[in-house]
Structures are given as structure tokens and as C-alpha cells.
């Protein structure tokens, strides 16, 4: 993100909660050559609707065309584009790290620093989880690599727009200090 432009688009797509809708969306992306970086989907507060949060690789696709093609799908009801600079994003990661008993403490300490959780402890390995912003997960993952990751799974981002008030009060704080 050297020039301040985001490398990804985040699309929050409201769809009818019916069988096959996810298949339609992903096959549209495949067919048009748009590269999906990550995808998360679940029903919303209205059980008839689901929300799919898709992170799309900017290089592969003009965003305007993606949005328009998505709208052509009968099951797609609403699409919002979330600018990463103006959204709150969260993701969950679980990872199993190979670590001999005498070094286990280091991994535990690392996890605590990041405010993650210990899920399971084995003789030669430990399973941890962490939720947070994608950048925080990236940093944690990189640190874990030093120990030897056995297996790792991330959920893909979910995101909501930042609140206006929150942004304004941050700006005010910045000026004051």
C-alpha cells in the first residue's frame, strides 16, 4: 500500500439465504476472472438473508464491473463496497504450532501479548486462536512461523463501515495532542 491505495476491495453482499446462492456468486467470479482473496458468509439478523463478505484482489478486476455483474444475479439484493481505510475489519485465526515442552512458554507469552487464546496443549505442539484486525493476524502469523506452524486456518474478513462519530472524535483527539 505504498501509494495509499488499497490492494483489495471489500464487498459486502446481501443475498437471499437459499441453496446455491454462494455457488452462483463464486462461479460468477471465476467466470469473469475476478480473483477472490477471501470469503466469509453467514445468515444475517434476518434469517431470510445472508451476508457474504468478499475480499477481491484489485489487480484482477475493475470494481465497477464486478459490482454490476453481481447485481445481475437474481438472488443478490444489495452490495456495499467497504473502503479498508474507512471500515472496521475482523478476522479469526487458529493455528497449531510445533513446540517442544521447554519452549512452550514462549509461545504462550506471545499469544498473551497479542491477547489470543490457548485452545489446546499437546506434548510437542500447541493450538492457539487469535481474533483481530487482518494486520494483527498477519503479524502474529509471521512470529509463529519462527516456531514451525503445523497447520493454520483463517476465516476471511468480515467488515462494517466505521462510525462517523468515532472517526470525527479520533480526528479531534489527534488535533488536541
Amino acid at each position: 500500500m505504498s501509494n495509499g491505495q488499497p490492494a483489495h476491495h471489500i464487498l459486502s453482499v446481501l443475498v437471499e439465504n437459499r441453496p446455491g446462492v454462494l455457488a452462483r456468486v463464486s462461479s460468477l467470479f471465476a467466470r469473469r476472472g475476478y480473483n477472490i482473496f477471501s470469503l466469509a458468509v453467514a445468515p444475517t439478523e434476518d434469517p431470510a438473508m445472508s451476508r457474504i463478505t468478499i475480499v477481491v484482489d484489485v489487480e484482477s478486476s475493475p470494481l465497477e464491473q464486478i459490482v454490476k455483474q453481481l447485481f445481475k444475479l437474481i438472488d443478490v439484493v444489495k452490495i456495499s463496497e467497504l473502503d479498508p481505510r474507512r471500515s472496521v475489519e475482523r478476522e479469526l485465526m487458529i493455528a497449531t504450532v510445533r513446540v517442544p515442552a521447554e519452549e512452550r512458554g514462549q509461545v504462550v507469552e506471545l499469544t498473551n501479548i497479542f491477547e489470543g487464546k490457548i485452545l489446546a496443549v499437546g506434548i510437542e505442539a500447541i493450538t492457539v486462536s487469535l481474533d483481530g484486525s487482518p494486520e494483527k493476524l498477519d503479524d502474529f502469523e509471521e512470529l509463529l512461523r519462527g516456531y514451525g506452524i503445523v497447520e493454520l486456518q483463517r476465516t476471511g474478513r468480515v467488515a462494517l463501515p466505521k462510525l462517523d462519530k468515532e472517526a470525527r472524535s479520533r480526528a479531534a483527539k489527534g488535533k488536541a495532542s
Partner: protein
Amino acid sequence: MTEKLTGAQALIRALELEGVDTIFGLPGGCILPAYDPLLDSPIRHILVRHEQGAGHMAEGYAHVTGRPGVAMVTSGPAATNMVTPLCDAYMDSIPMVCITGQVSTTAIGTDAFQECDTVGITRSVTKHNELIMTADDIPLMVRQAFHIATTGRPGPVLLDLPKDVLQNQMTWHWPTDSDVEDSLPGYRPTTKGHPRMIKEAARLILESKQPVLYVGGGVLKARAADALRELAEMIDAPVVTTLMARGAFPDDHPLCLGMPGMHGNATAITAMQKSDLLITLGARFDDRITGRVATFAPDAKIIHVDIDPAEQGKVRRPDVPIVGDCRLVIEEIIKALRDMLAGGEKQADISAWKSRVSGWREQFPLHYSPSEPGDALKPQYCLEKLRDASPEGTILCSGVGQHQMWSSQYWKFNEPYTWVNSGGLGTMGFSVPAAIGAKVGRPDRTVWAVDGDGCFQMTAQELVTASVERIPIKVAVLNNSYLGMVRQWQEMFYEERYSEVYLSPELPDFVKWAEAMGCVGIRVESPEEVEAAIEKANSIDDRSVVVEFRVDAGEKVFPMVPAGQSNDDVILHPAQSTKREFLR
């Protein structure tokens, strides 16, 4: 008072209530339950010989009537045989509802007999598709299917019906129009153009000194031919009609330049290239029209009217995008222009442009070298004779290839819905079944199917359907013993290295084959025989006629803009190429 019906009875009743008068189909195991109530229904069923034929017939029917074509086939291989017609309808925005049988809901996913993932396979070639899991859903799903197929940008919709769903009981109900709309929260096509955009378009039109009306298939879908004519005559601008729009504006009209694009005429191509304003109506800047996009109409501003918002900016960024129904938008533009002119504004002087365009027309008519005595018959000559002898309102259907291009170039389309062809997908074998569907839709018209010998061999068996069902069509097979268009490319770009394009001069015997299928068969081998053969064909009303014209294989389609090249570098017929400086 509740009425109990089987899913199959509900399906047939739903189709009747949607106004379906014809189903093209072929029964099989899974769809069998639906064929029983069909016996008692006023709907006419036409039994085809290949499911692909049912699909193309439904398309031909839709092309000429504007009503959705309906095809019904069974599961598995029948459904997969529908993929080509569905993809064709999808590419050309043809309203079509296709009903496929499916194995019982309890058997889905077990690799049962004649099972396939129809919804998965046809997902990307349909506007929408649904697997219906309970019989109670049938009325709503059928209503939805017809609504989606016929509104917004028309397209094919597939309903997959498991056998047990057809056999199960349901309680009859018929959803209202607003029930249907409410059930599709994600589908709200925009038909009315934005007033500000319309005013802006009118302003650009009045300012333009070199306008061209670029008319695409959307004008026919919107039934906007009359509105288009009013607009064109009001601003006195030249009109080009794409392959999918031939007939939307009369070829005989002085403003009509004919077809642009890869095999368009030089005037139409050049007028678009040199224009300062392309008033684009229901067209999508297809690569066959634009040639190399970077060099397409470099100086033109673009007004783009299309009902599909995704087409705006897909190929070329419009200056004035207008999402809406062509007919409604054209009418609003006419009103806006009238208001501006009444308010004292003036249209720019386009007389210099008009004479420039007239100059091109004079210098670059369509041209082919006529045959010398003793020479082989020329395909273009056959089409000209066919055209001149055709009764008013004749519907012309075509396959894909050289014969298709010559048909579009040389025929005079003066009425909409008289040209039926496969543009976007370019499906060989489209012609014969589409002609049958067209004749069913317009039994009062003469229907001619032009076909190449390659295309004919793909779907000719449907002539048996035509004979048995008493749907008399006329077929002109332009037999040059080659896959002509491919041969042309190999001649021009592969140094005459002809790879796998030679069919055969004697096989099949088209005349004997036609007679075997219950048609009259006529062979024409020299120019002298052409008119008499056509007259004989036109005089026969009670059965189909196949006229085989043995034509010169060396003829090439000109003009030509090779794929990916600039429209400025259009290749003209050799006899005209010395004059190309006049196209600058």
C-alpha cells in the same frame, strides 16, 4: 376451497396461465409425469428429434413473436443437450423458459440413472435457474421464471423438476403479480431513463456535427422500431444496424447505412469510425463491431442507452449512460429534443457529414465478382435472387459462417422480426430448427432458412419434425463443400494451408436426404437454374422444400476487419481496394 393437484398438473396449468401456446420437447423417464396432463391441455407440443432442436426452435419462436419460447426435456443427457441453445439464448438475450426433468429428490447426488447437476451445469448460461424441491413451489417458480425471462434484459431461465415433485400432491394457488415481484427482492429492472441524462443526451445530439445512430438488438427487444424511426427522421442522422438488429430500421430507408462491424459494409464501418457522436441504442460494443477497441471511433462521444447497467462502461466509457428500456428512453429523448427546438435551440448543421457519408456509399457498395459464363454459381447471386423473389414479410433464418454474413449483407430487411440468426454464440446448425420455431410463431409468413453445407449436417434431422408436424419451411443450402468461413481465414491468414475444412462435394446427397425426410429436394448447379428453382420452392405450401445450391468455394466475404485489428484497416474486395483513400 382447496384444490389438490399433482405437481405435473400444476406445472401444465401454470404454463397455460402464463399464456404458453407451444412447447417444443421430447419426453423421457424423469419428465414423464409432466407429459400426462399435457395430453389434456390446449398447449401444442411439438415432438423434436434432438433436444438441441427443441431449444433452437424455442429461440426461433421467441425471435419472431417476442414471446418466450418454451422447451421441455428430461434429465441427464437431455438437459446437457440444452446447454448450447441456452448459451445461445443467453448471449443474444432471447426470452426462453426451459423445463428439465430431474431424478427424485431422494436420489439427487447418488449418480442415479440419467442424473446430472443441471443447475450447476447451466448456471453460467442462464439468466436464472432453480431446482424445485416441493410441488407447492411450482406456481410461484413458474411465474418467477416467466417474469425473469421476459423483463429487463430478456434471457433464458431453467426450471429443474425432480420426478417425485411432479408426482406429489400440492394445493393449487396462483400468485399475483405483486406476490411475484415481492418474492424477488434482488430483481428490480430499471426501465425509465434518468431525466437529467436524457436532457444531456438531447443536448449532445443537437450539438453533434457527425452523428451516427448505432442500433443493436435491444431496440428489437424493446419493440422500439417505430420510435427509432421517428428519432432518426427528426435528426436526419445516418443509422447502422448490427447483426442482431437487422430490420429494426428499414434497409430501404435513405438514412440506413446497413450493417457495420467485422463483415459490415465500408460505409457503415467508416461512418462509425469518423463520427463525433455515437447514439448507441440497445447495443453492447461487441468486439465484432469495434475491432481493436483502442482505435474504435476515436473522436466520438458516446450516448449509451441499454437496459442492462452492466453493459455501461464494459467496453467503452459512455459520456452519457442511460439505463432504461430503449423504447421509453427514445420517446423521452424525442420529447426533450422537441422541447429544446421549440425553445429556440438549433441542431448543428450536419449537411457536410451527410454528403461525406453519401460519397462513401457511392464509392463502396457491396461487391462480388459475378460469375462468367461456365463459372461456378456464386452464393451472393443466389441470395440476391432469393431476396428478389421472396414474398413481402418473408422471415429469413440463418446458420453461422459465410452464408450468414452474405445473408445479412445482401438481404433487404425492411421490417423488424424478419431476421433470425445466432449472433453472440454463433451456433452452427441454428438455422433449420430456428426456422421451424419461427414458422410456428408466424405461420402466416414464408420462412426461408439459409444454411451452409456444414451447418445443415448438424441439425437437419429436425426437418423430420417439420414434415411430421406439418410446419412447412424452405431451406437454401449454399453448398460449397467446405466449412467456408474457416477456409477463408486459412486462405487469408494461414497461407492457404487448408486444415480440416473440406467436407465433400457429393456426400451427403442433399436432395435424396431432403426427400427421405419428407421434403421436396431441388438441386441447382448453374446460374440459369436459380430463378426457376426458387419459384418452384416458393410455390409449395404443404411441405418443406430444400434447395441445394452448388456454389463456388473460392468466394470470400468482403469487406473484412480481421479479429483484433482496427476498423480503419478494413480489407475491401480486391476490385475496390485501390479506392480506399476515399475512406479517410
